[in-house]
């Protein structure tokens, strides 16, 4: 019995070993190296790796710009994920009833997800160009005032959120559609026999059963949104002023414009910790519901 267990353990490690080793090399080492940089005095001007402690974290966290970026990141992530979920769920529910040309709808709706964020940003940059862009030209044609979509500090973040929702909702649609397709029919049949209205069925059956898939969709999208960088880089460079400066962009600027790899890594690590914390909390909630 003992030999059998030991053999199984060995076999398990044998199968998992190559994958774990690859993960350790490809992901573990860079993360450890970044951690070491964040605790060091390494800059692009002085690239020696001398460990100095948590000073870089203190420096970063004592700056109002960092807290501004963190606040914007939280607002941006919450708004985009909420928007993606609501729109994604609505479209997934509608697609559930579609029978004819279902594949075509899915293909069209998946297109934005297949596009690179840089391409998406460039397309929207042209569409929203204040003077010559098609959106403002259409508004002008209708006799409406032209809108400064990305140059107005009150509007720029909202515009970015809209563009992000436009691109990322496809992924939520796919995930929720798969979740909806796998729901059992029995509870619905029972509810119909009991005379439950469609809205009641949605609220008391669909949503609770869909919760695990929905939570996974939310976690994945939250991770994605916290890391958003490309859209900001192409569309606003964090401006006007600091109104769209997300934490990822703050970290990039610190590392490559400020030449302070150590402080940039520290900012990136704070971002990683936040994402990690959110992921752990979500999975904890998910497991607790299961149990």
């Amino acid at each position, binding site marked *: 019995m003992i030999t059998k267990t030991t053999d199984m353990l060995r076999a398990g490690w044998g199968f998992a070993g190559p994958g774990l080793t690859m993960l350790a090399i490809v992901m573990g080492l860079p993360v450890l190296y970044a951690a070491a940089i964040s605790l060091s005095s390494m800059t*692009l*001007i002085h*690239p020696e790796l001398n460990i100095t402690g948590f000073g870089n974290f203190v420096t970063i966290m004592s700056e109002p710009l960092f807290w501004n970026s963190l606040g914007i990141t939280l607002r941006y992530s919450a708004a985009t994920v909420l928007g993606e979920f609501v729109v994604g769920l609505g479209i997934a529910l509608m697609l559930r009833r579609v029978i004819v040309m279902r594949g075509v709808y899915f293909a069209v709706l998946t297109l934005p997800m297949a596009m690179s964020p840089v391409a998406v940003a460039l397309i929207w940059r042209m569409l929203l*160009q*204040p*003077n*010559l862009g098609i959106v*403002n030209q259409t508004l002008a044609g209708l006799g409406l005032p*032209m*809108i*400064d*979509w*990305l*140059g*107005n*500090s009150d509007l*720029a973040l909202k515009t970015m959120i809209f563009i992000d929702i436009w691109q990322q909702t496809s992924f939520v649609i796919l995930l929720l559609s798969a979740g909806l397709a796998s729901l059992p029919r029995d509870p619905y049949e029972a509810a119909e026999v009991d005379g439950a209205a469609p809205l009641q069925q949605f609220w008391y059956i669909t949503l609770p059963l869909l919760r695990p898939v929905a939570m996974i969709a939310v976690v994945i999208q939250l991770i994605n949104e916290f890391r958003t960088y490309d859209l900001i880089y192409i*569309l*606003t*460079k*964090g*401006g*006007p*002023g*600091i*109104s769209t400066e997300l934490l990822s962009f703050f970290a990039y*600027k610190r590392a*490559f*414009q*400020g*030449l302070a790899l150590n402080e940039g890594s520290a900012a990136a690590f704070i971002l990683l910790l936040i994402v990690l914390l959110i992921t752990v909390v979500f999975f904890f909630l998910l497991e607790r519901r299961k149990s």
Partner: protein
Amino acid sequence: MTKTFFPVTLGLAVSLVGGTALADEVTLHALMEDVPETNIIEKMLPEFERETGIKVEFEKVGYGDMHDKLVAQLVGGQSYYNLLEVDFLWAGEFPAAGWLEDLKPYAEKTGFDMSAFIPSTMDLMGNTKDTMPLVPMYNYSMGLIYRTDLLNAPDLKAAYKSETGQELEPPKTLEAYVRVAKFMKAHGKVNGAAMQGQKGDPNAMEFSNYLFSAGGDYLDVDGKVVLASKAGETALRLYKDAINNAAQTGALSATLDDTMRLMCAGEAFSMVTYWWMLPQIDNAESCPNVAGKVALSVMPGGHGESGGWGWGIAKNVPAEEKDAAWKFITWVQSTDVAVARAMEGHAPVRADVYVNSDVLAKYAFYKDAMAVVESGKSFPIFTYSAQYEDTLGTQVSLAASGDVTVTDALQAAASGLTDLMNK
């Protein structure tokens, strides 16, 4: 035996000779910005290779990718890029990090005459009488491009006279320029100024022109920060005024491309931009609405922002590659090659090219361009220039959008400069 001995010996001899030849062959690798200047030089490379036997390979990328790619090579054991194209904004950082060869001894050893280079272009590269980290490559100083047809339109002239009591003419001060630009927006059926207000490089460069035009500066002769001066305040106040009352909708998110498109479409009276944009706008094929109706001048007030690229040689490459790189630099910046480049649209850094009769016959406006280059003042060049662009750009953007006052933004920009210079 003889039958096998001969081919083997021949093979050995050929491989020996071939091996020596390969060892002697030096290839220069340069990371270049993907712009017309690079293409002009690239077309001439076969000529250099024929003359010297040195092969040159250009890897062309966008500006945004250059700094990080270069730095990754320069901090390593041996750089892949031995010939360097360096923006003036990095002319403080690269020498401070010890990544560049001092080219002064090379110039002295080979007798390369640096006196033909326009002094402002030399200063821009951080060159002093003791060291020369970079040789100027091409220039992108900024001036004012404006519409002559609008300025000379009789109805607009009359309206301006009755509104202001002054003649409508090319502005001589920054205040006059903003006044004319606002007037054009109100009465000329065009935007008064096509402005690149996106924070960072676009608005920092644009604001610098306003600052120098208003008589302000970033540093005094002793290197003390003097940005938060009366002139600085005037410059930022007028910049804000221009963004809000003379510029196009969306100026705060606009970049160079946006302003270029607007000017080209005939929808703007003026733009503060790089002088070599003039031939692109004054082009009947690409910009038929404005071709023949535009002129270039030095920024009102007498000074605009200087800008330029330089050639450098990486320190962490073998000596023979350094020598080959210097040979290339002296060739590409020689009078003959610089004139040949200018005939294709190059923005020269040598005074003798601007007054060359062939060049002037083809591009008469090079006379005005030289004035722009000569009068240009530099953005502060130090280790953290690139970061300062962002710091300044943020404050200018905040002031222009009305999120902070002009005085507070200027104070923050000045203290940001002091902090970075003391870092």
